[in-house]
């Protein structure tokens, strides 16, 4: 049914249609609305049988999901930001054990300084945890990716993280088509675990593995992610057959065929970039966009094919690897000639990414003026002030507080 609905609610409804048997969660913005809605579904009996476990921390949330999945239950949780960091040890355990848990990450910055707004620092910090990572462009795709995620996870025995931009998607109301229970049941087979803790047929899961086999266990994890490169597009095309719309897959190329410049990005900013590129196309600029939906596994071949002969690739990323630059960029540079690739760090801690800023940056890119590493809309005056304070004396004080004092009124600006 097509509805005008909040993104969090659309995702919760899609997850409920997947019939998870255990949902565990600890509240953290901007993920909270999702699990609140799921809790309501469990309470009302609409999602049944399902046990909703309110836990004492994110570490416990993932630990409960691991236990539930190990006994053969379909398990789901959601988190964001510091919550994801707090569960990090268990995140690695879930993938290392091969448990097909599905988790939503409502992308949010990581402190300090504390910041509740959107960027990709949280999920990017777990990019090598062994989880599959899918990034949603719209709320429709976010909802659809969850249905696909359970199928991918369970077929491969690997956990899947569905990443959706916090607030920008989770709190946005737009139209989302939610399928019927019958349609989702027909698409998503019952969970048939490869391994299960069953008193009637006892096994142990989680053996200590020494040097004799640790590399082989890791190799097999990598091999399964390489299998996912085949499975993810296959599931997306089956989804398109069943539901009549394109969601998921490895990449979303947009007007890339004849493009001389291609902008690569993940998540909800793709819409703003596409609008900007359309405007530039009207002025005769041959520019395209490549959305990466699957960041893990990273689709080297699909990226290489989509970039083709384009002369310049601009990777716009919402996370920063402090001390080196772009995280997505480092991956893209394994797919295409590194010299062609520039990094633009944008949208950190919720800074709005506007079409006006994108126009300015892309005009620089076309003119060959774009630096290898650019911070979009960087306030140089603010930085200069702090550097001057630091140069003036040893006790320059706390940096974040200094910058806020310089800025004066908080929340007076729109964009």
């Amino acid at each position, binding site marked *: 049914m097509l509805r*005008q609905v*909040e993104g969090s609610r659309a995702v919760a409804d899609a997850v409920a249609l997947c019939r998870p048997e255990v949902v565990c969660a600890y509240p953290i*913005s*901007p993920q909270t609305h999702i699990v609140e809605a799921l809790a309501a579904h469990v309470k009302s009996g609409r999602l049944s049988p399902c046990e909703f476990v309110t836990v004492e921390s994110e570490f416990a949330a993932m630990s409960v999901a691991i236990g539930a999945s190990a006994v053969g239950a379909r398990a789901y949780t959601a988190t964001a930001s510091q919550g994801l960091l707090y569960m990090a040890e268990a995140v690695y355990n879930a993938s290392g054990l091969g448990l097909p848990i599905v988790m939503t990450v409502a992308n949010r910055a990581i402190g300090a300084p504390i910041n*509740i*707004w*959107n960027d990709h620092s949280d999920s990017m910090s777990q990019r090598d945890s062994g989880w599959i990572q899918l990034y949603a462009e719209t709320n429709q795709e976010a909802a659809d990716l969850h249905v696909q995620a359970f199928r991918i996870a369970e077929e491969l025995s690997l956990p899947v993280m569905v990443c959706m931009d916090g*607030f*920008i998607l989770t*709190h*946005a*109301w*737009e*139209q989302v088509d939610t399928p019927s229970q019958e349609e989702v049941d027909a698409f998503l087979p019952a969970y048939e675990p490869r391994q299960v803790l069953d008193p009637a047929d006892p096994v142990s899961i989680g053996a200590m593995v020494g040097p004799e086999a640790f590399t082989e266990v890791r190799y097999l994890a990598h091999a399964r992610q390489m299998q996912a490169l085949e499975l993810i597009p296959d599931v997306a095309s089956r989804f398109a057959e069943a539901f009549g719309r394109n969601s998921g897959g490895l990449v979303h190329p947009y007007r890339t065929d004849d493009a001389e410049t291609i902008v690569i990005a993940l998540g*909800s*900013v*793709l*819409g*703003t970039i*596409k*609008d900007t590129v359309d405007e530039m196309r009207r002025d005769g600029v041959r520019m395209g966009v490549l959305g990466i939906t699957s960041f893990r596994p990273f689709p080297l071949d699909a990226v290489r094919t989509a970039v083709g002969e384009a002369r310049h690739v601009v990777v716009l990323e919402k996370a920063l690897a402090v001390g080196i630059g772009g995280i997505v960029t480092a991956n893209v540079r394994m797919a295409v000639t590194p010299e062609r690739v520039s990094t633009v760090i944008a949208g950190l801690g*919720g800074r*709005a*990414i*506007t*079409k*006006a800023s994108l126009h300015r940056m892309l005009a620089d890119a076309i003119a060959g003026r774009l630096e290898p590493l650019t911070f979009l809309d960087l306030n140089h005056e603010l930085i200069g002030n702090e550097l001057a304070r630091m140069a003036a004396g040893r006790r320059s004080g706390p940096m974040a507080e200094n910058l806020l004092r310089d800025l004066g*009124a908080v*929340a*007076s*600006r*729109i*964009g």
Partner: protein
Amino acid sequence: MFEVRVHGRGGQGVVTAAELLSVAAFLEGRHAQAFPSFGSERTGAPVVAFCRIDDHAIRSREPVVRPDAVIIQDVTLLHQVHVFEGLRPEGYLLVNSTRGFDELGIGEFVRDFRRDRLLVVPATELARQHVGRPVPNAALLGGFAALSGRVSLESVTTAIGQRFAGRVAAGNIAAATAAYEFVRAEQEEMRNAQAG
């Protein structure tokens, strides 16, 4: 594309106003996108919410920086937040107040605006009367429907009815309807004054 920005303070239903407006537009078969300005939503803190309405799918997710309409739920923000940023003289401006633009100190600013697209509505008073609480959002949506003609009053009240139940729904629908009629009466008076 028609873009609306709603300014108010935490607790005044700013975010809900944008959401309800998006639902009203959706009910009329249009594409709509509503989202808040993502602050830590503390009671009394400045809050901004946005709504875009179009005949096509809306892809851009930047904040509304060039609004076609601005709704101001709390006039104490007028000189604190850049509420008029990007608003052009042909834009719509709806302010929750019992005072006129001159009295509010923005008479000079709106001098070049189209007079028929500017209005103050006593939304807080209407809310007190019909809802029993000073929550001006539903009333302002009713007023906005009349001022802009971009959504019908019926769609606004249907959206309110889908979101709330019982007395809360009935009160907010009554407040929206009263504000709609208030704006219609003001428009009629303005037309008569011009004709006279």
